């Protein structure tokens, strides 16, 4: 049976391997260049100079990275939370403002980022909100919402409602049903929504540029503003360090380790 199961998945395995190759080719090249003595993309010889630069002369980069990571974690969490709740609410119920929320929460996906950025900036000004990490957090949560909502919604699609009804029949309250039935079943969707939101937040430049305040710069802002004088391979070094860090973090506890490698 084993050989036929491998054969069965031939096409999907091929697609998966192609995808991984596609994703990791530039990553490996980028890591390679972080060890390049030359700052150009032509290999000269092995050197750790960019790592030395990173750990000794790049305080502003680390600050920017901390801001990015903090914002990504918080805005992804909040948008996933709000998106999940809303997806649940809109899937099984009908109410007056449902259509409004469906349309309004879908719009941030469509409207060009630069328009969202400028409009938020103007509004913060009118509200008297000082630009800073909070405004960046608000902006990021806002544009991650449609992603979180749609991913969890598509996960809920064709959810077997009988399970939920059974829970109610057994006397569970709404919250108990939510936490013990709906959320666990939707977990892959929630995780997917969270991962997408983190990725979007870490990478965002345009919207962040407009709503970040003095001193609350994020990593993409720094990197794009380096273009005029040359993007240094210090960024490559930083990226490698981040990847290693993320991997170590993911596998750091036995619990996480087992969850990731679970069958």
């Amino acid at each position, binding site marked *: 049976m084993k050989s036929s199961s491998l054969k069965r998945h031939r096409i999907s395995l091929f697609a998966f391997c192609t995808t991984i190759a596609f994703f990791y080719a530039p990553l490996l090249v980028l890591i390679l260049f972080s060890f390049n003595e*030359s*700052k*150009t*993309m*032509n290999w*000269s010889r092995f050197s750790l100079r960019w790592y030395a630069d990173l750990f000794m*002369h790049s*305080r*502003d980069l*680390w*600050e920017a990275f*901390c801001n990015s*990571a*903090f914002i990504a974690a918080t805005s992804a969490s909040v948008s996933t939370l709000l998106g999940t709740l809303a997806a649940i609410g809109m899937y099984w119920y009908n109410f007056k403002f449902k259509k409004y929320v469906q349309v309004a929460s879908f719009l941030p996906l469509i409207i060009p980022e630069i328009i969202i950025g*400028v409009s938020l*900036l*103007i509004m*913060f*000004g*009118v509200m008297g909100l*000082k*630009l800073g990490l909070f405004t960046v957090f608000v902006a990021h949560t806002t544009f991650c919402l449609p992603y979180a909502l749609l991913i969890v919604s598509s996960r809920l699609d064709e959810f077997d409602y009988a399970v939920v009804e059974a829970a109610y029949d057994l006397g569970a309250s709404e919250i108990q049903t939510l936490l013990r039935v709906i959320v666990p079943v939707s977990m892959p969707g929630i995780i997917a929504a969270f991962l997408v939101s983190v990725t979007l937040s870490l990478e965002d430049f345009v919207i962040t*540029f*407009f709503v*970040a*305040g*003095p*001193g609350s*710069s994020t990593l993409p*802002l*720094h990197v*794009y*503003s*380096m*273009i*005029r*004088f*040359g*993007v240094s391979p210090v960024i490559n070094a930083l990226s490698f360090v981040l990847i290693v860090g993320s991997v170590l*973090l993911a596998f*750091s*506890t036995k*619990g*996480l380790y087992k969850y990731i490698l679970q069958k």
Partner: protein
Amino acid sequence: MKKQVAIILCFMIAVFLSCSNSGKQKLFIYNWTYYMPDDVLRDFEKRFNVEIVYDVYPSNEDMFAKLKSGASGYDIVVPSQDYVSIMIKENMLSPLDISKIPNFKNIDTAVLARITFDKGNKFSVPYMMGGSGIAVNKTRVAKYEKSWNIFNRADLKNRMTMLDDMREVLGAALRSLGYSVNSTNPQELDKAKQVVLGWKANLCKFDAEAFAKGFAAGEFWVVQGYAENVMREYDSTKTSEIEFFIPKEGGTAYIDNLVVLKDAKHKDLAYSFINYIHDPKVYAKIIDYLRYPCINVEAKKFTTKKSNYELSDIANSELKNDIGESLELYNKIWQEIRVGR
């Protein structure tokens, strides 16, 4: 899991605490990355016992869009010449009292004479002056004319780029025809458009973001760009392989200026900073780092490295000034060029 979260939180809090409130006065500068060397900023912090918060932007346009939409909190910004005049007209700048900037006298009067966008320096103090030119990879291109005509060479097809910037490209075309880079004459602009369409056939692409990296990697052999970008991306041991020149017809020039925003909260500190920048020893350090032509006469005594080009090289280049309403016309022509009509 909880342990991990706790560790991360502690780490972040530690970093945040180490960066925030030292109780010192702060100066907020908004500029390009790397445009002010780190040691110059740290020395200022030590000398005046303050903290500099340095934020960055990738272009004048982005900076202006943000400030116009209501962002505030910055004391010093470094706009280029056309944006200085725009910001003056939009009432965004604080008038400068030059008597508070004694080092202003060190600035080359020839440079000051070229300043038409802020006559009398009522709102700005020049920081750096430069011009766009052409960089050629001599190992790939043996003989070439030091002129904009290089872009007419079909033998270099697909190995050349020009900037993705309508003022720079149209400005180059206007200059090559002998017109002004600030021309608003539709006939002149139409001729310039034809010139650019001719160049476009030989270009690989219009690029303002990866041309220097591509040039350094050998992707492109001839690029229109800025010396600071090309030189800094190139291997410092191999710079003899390339030549950066300002074409003989002249090109576009720019002056980046230090300005104080109208709603700046630390105006005195801003004055101290501007004065500090033009301290001859400090300015010399900056020039050694950036390799720009030196516009501070006294600082020339202290520079140790050669600039990429001199002020005399850009004598024939014209400052790109604000063209007001005609920007629409330029935009229309540029979009037509880009789409290929």
